[in-house]
């Protein structure tokens, strides 16, 4: 597959190291994010788990997924996994977005959004290997932007600032990876999709946390970006291409309703 040239200085790339062994599931990250980004609270229901909300929402950029299981020796395991935009080096959302400026990358490598430029097409939703982008009540994209307003002013993102145990560490991506390797951590996302901006030190296999073992951008996106879209430069073919893409990525239009506005629609 053709690769997109890295549009940022990889040495200066910033990111997170999420060390699940250090995470105590306190969810300071969830609340600090809401506070800094002035996101409203979602109404939730206790359906028999500590985990709430049950999915990312337009007003929830990161959350802790609680993974409860029994171990082979009859003991218990309860793991806490921080779910959020991965700020992929090769970002499906950016690749597919037809509106210039709606999804862009900063020089630090952070994938940010601009609601004013968003045309509500939701292509990014289908193009994301991690099912991250959500659409708000105004039908505009919404996701973790790594507190770009803080980072560009030399501050740590709100979630990492609030984390009491350094489970969520922000900094130069290379440095974080080197420190994790020095501590003999098994990493997820170091090289996938040209390196995820959020690299995980996991205690178990990725699928245990609901992560794809080998994340990739859907083939249809490759088709769009690398085959159909270049053809689309010819003009007319572009609109045919867009229709085609809409069909292969989003499918028939009823899918829109399937995307939850709140966790009420989600059940285990």
């Amino acid at each position, binding site marked *: 597959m053709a690769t997109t040239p890295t549009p940022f200085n990889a040495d200066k790339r910033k990111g997170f190291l999420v060390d699940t062994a250090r995470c105590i599931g306190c969810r300071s990250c969830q609340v600090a994010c809401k506070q800094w980004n002035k996101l409203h609270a979602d109404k939730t229901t206790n359906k028999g788990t500590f985990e709430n909300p049950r999915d990312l929402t337009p007003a929830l950029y990161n959350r802790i997924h609680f993974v409860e299981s*029994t171990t082979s020796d009859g003991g218990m395991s309860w793991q806490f996994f921080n779910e959020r935009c991965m700020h992929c080096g090769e970002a499906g959302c950016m690749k597919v977005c037809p509106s210039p400026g709606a999804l862009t990358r900063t020089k630090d490598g952070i994938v940010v959004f601009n609601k004013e430029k968003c045309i509500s097409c939701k292509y990014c939703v289908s193009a994301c290997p991690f099912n991250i982008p959500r659409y708000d009540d105004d039908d505009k994209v919404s996701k973790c932007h790594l507190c770009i307003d803080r980072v560009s002013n030399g501050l740590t993102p709100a979630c990492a600032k609030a984390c009491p145990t350094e489970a969520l560490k922000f900094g130069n991506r290379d440095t974080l990876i080197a420190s994790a390797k020095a501590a003999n951590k098994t990493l997820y996302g170091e090289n996938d999709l040209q390196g995820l901006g959020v690299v995980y030190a996991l205690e178990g296999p990725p699928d245990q946390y609901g992560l794809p073992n080998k994340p990739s951008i859907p083939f249809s996106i490759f088709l769009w970006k690398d085959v159909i879209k270049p053809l689309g430069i010819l003009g007319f073919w572009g609109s045919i291409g867009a229709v085609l893409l809409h069909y292969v990525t989003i499918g028939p239009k009823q899918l829109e309703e399937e995307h939850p506005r709140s966790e009420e629609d989600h059940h285990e």
Partner: protein
Amino acid sequence: MTNHWIDLKNADVILIMGANPAENHPLSFRWIMKAKDAGAKVICVDPRFTRSAAKSDLYAALRSGTDIAFLGGMINYIIQNKAYFEEYVKQYTNASYLVNGDFKMPGELAGLFSGYDPQKRSYDPKAWSFQKGADDSVRKDMTLLDPNCVFQLLKKHYSRYTPELVSRITGTPKEKLLEIYKLYASTGAPDKAGTSMYAMGWTQHTVGTQNIRTMSIIQLLLGNMGVAGGGVNALRGESNVQGSTDQGLLFHILPGYLPVPSADLKDLAAYNEKYTPKSKDPQSANWWQNRPKYIASYLKAIYGAKATKENDYGYAWLPKLDPGMNCSWLMIFDNMIKGKFKGFFAWGQNPACSGTNSNKVRNALAKLDWMVTVNIFDNETASFWKGPGMNPADVKTEVFLLPAAASFEKEGSISNSGRWAQWRYAAVKPLGSSKPDAEIIHELYQKLKSLYTKEGGALPEQLLNLTWNYGFKHADGSIHSVDPHLVAKEINGYFLEDVPDKKAPASMPPKMLGKKGELVGGFALLQADGSTSCGNWIYSQSYNEKGNMMARRGKKDPTGLGMFPEWSWCWPVNRRIIYNRASCDLDGKPFNQKKAVVYWNPAAVQPTGALGAWVGDVPDGPWPPMSDPKDGKKPFIMRADGVAAIFGPGMKEGPFPEHYEPLECPLAENMLSKQLNNPTIKLFKEADVKEDMVASCDPRFPYVASTYRVTEHWQTGVMTRNTPWLLELQPRLFVELSPELAKEKGIKSGDMVEVSSIRGSVEAAAMVTQRFKPFTIGDQVVHEVGMPYCYGWHTPNVGDSVNLLTPTVGDANTMIPETKAFMVGIKRKG
């Protein structure tokens, strides 16, 4: 805490038991993780697999209320396997003391110690006395072999706590017990440290104090007191509960842990006689011999110039308890429901939800003429009159709700669990008409003072003679606003006269300890003759002539142990680890050279010119180590005999902890003895107050229940339920139960269920989870369920307080309610 939060990083083994720090003290895990990075092992023992358990290396479940059995088994293991730190035990504890030959223990007396009076439900502690020699000193056997010595009695007492029996009582598998015992006992090595982190999971039992005593004995056997990474560490449940306890929050103590006088102590001399211990041992510092200085300075602080030598420094004005009188939480509401109170201040609290047996509390509030609640939000207490089961027309209580400023809206100190008093500044101005608590108290005082002045009344001196020098004064003498710095200075204390240094050689001018008007530099300078004032002796030094020590933010860490001596200030005298001289041998050499809290440097020259000094943390006194026969002192300076007490320091239940079942329990018999419950607890009788019902071994309530907190909410949830972001995380009351019990009861995760005790019921969402497992207790299967206590009816659709279910019964020593072990039934709704 004997140690402090950061010190957790120095531990080799961390025992989390009776606490859930990952959820309730998340920041502690910053330091636990650093300990783990350095190779430490974390043990978690809890009925439920918690977020702390999830981060531990070793987890074991135990049935609620069986901690003494679990830990008693550990004492037995430590002794049988000779894992104790022998030199420490011999030198720094009373293990060698000989107990009188008539003394009998529960193994011989059907679960009781000598001296029990069943009518009074109490012991005569004289039955536990030590053998005395001709010179009135305690007889000892330093070989620890005498059958009457404390060590041999300890060994005999806990030999009954075999792994097999402990397993049958606790429900913890024997192999798991032994695995934990072995790991924790490894800290008995002189250069290893084990720390104990506990909270309400240990205290809120009818045997709460003895739970902690059992752990204290373990820590002494293993030599874990006074060392870095050791200690018995209470994780306080509120950011400033340490501070409020230090400042006299409880009914029976004045600031600085001075006992509240009882009415039979007619004058200050009688008070001092009773509460000032004596020691003839030249090696005992017996620090409480200074008590008269502290009480006199306290009286001078509160009554100022009105307190004179002639009037006993105003001792007569201090409120007194009747002898033996208990005014703790349970008694307040017991008396209130019996109509013995007219008015009540519910200040920064929500007893309608936090109080055990909340129906009793709520019904008691309805017996009042008036109630003032001071809070940052309306809550179940302020609005009790319109709560469930109340008919507002029938409630005669007049309720006032005063809006208080939140912590970010006021300046002052808070003292954390590690005794660090940290100064904070107001971030924003109070909203609307809300005021800092001190301002509200101030207005109340001004009003009462003017009423007493105009109208007179009973005992006006108590109020009119108070000093009140807290800020800028108007022409009429009233204070514009309370200045927290002046309050802090009063707590620190002043020299009220020039005080000469009587120990210094005569000189001209004479050497002074301090001049009139100066702030006292520390409690060692306080006087018993009225020449000094001090609002709280343990805080003396916190705000001295060098400034506000609590506001310091120095980041130096000379020992590398995380003590940060210039960051804020900690009591006493900035000592970060108390009993720290016990971390060294008799010559002052640290047992663990790599983590030396203090050590004796014989070559150091002191300011006085004397040779030899302690280096490191502020030591427990300047004296040389014990090997100095002339000036050496024993390390446990707050004990009259200078050593730590393995054999009981005046607990109600006896000199060694013994396992008794919770008042409400699933068992008809205690597997250890014929004594089912703690024989010394106060029993509240249903015949007196109908709400005081108890149902043990009742088939309607077959499941053990426990209550707890969650990360996402705080206390009864008054602050957090009003924070939508937090309600989003934990939206309503839930009950955690095992899949086995859920199957038995036809309950699925997410179902609404009714959980009831004989006292009340609540509706909760069922959380079916393998994190609870059925226990095998003796030969029967016992289920346990758990619920958080952070909800209340005042917030719509979250469910009511689980304290509607909990009983009115308390620990025999402290009367803290037993909310961690009681019995319930559960059924699916609809």
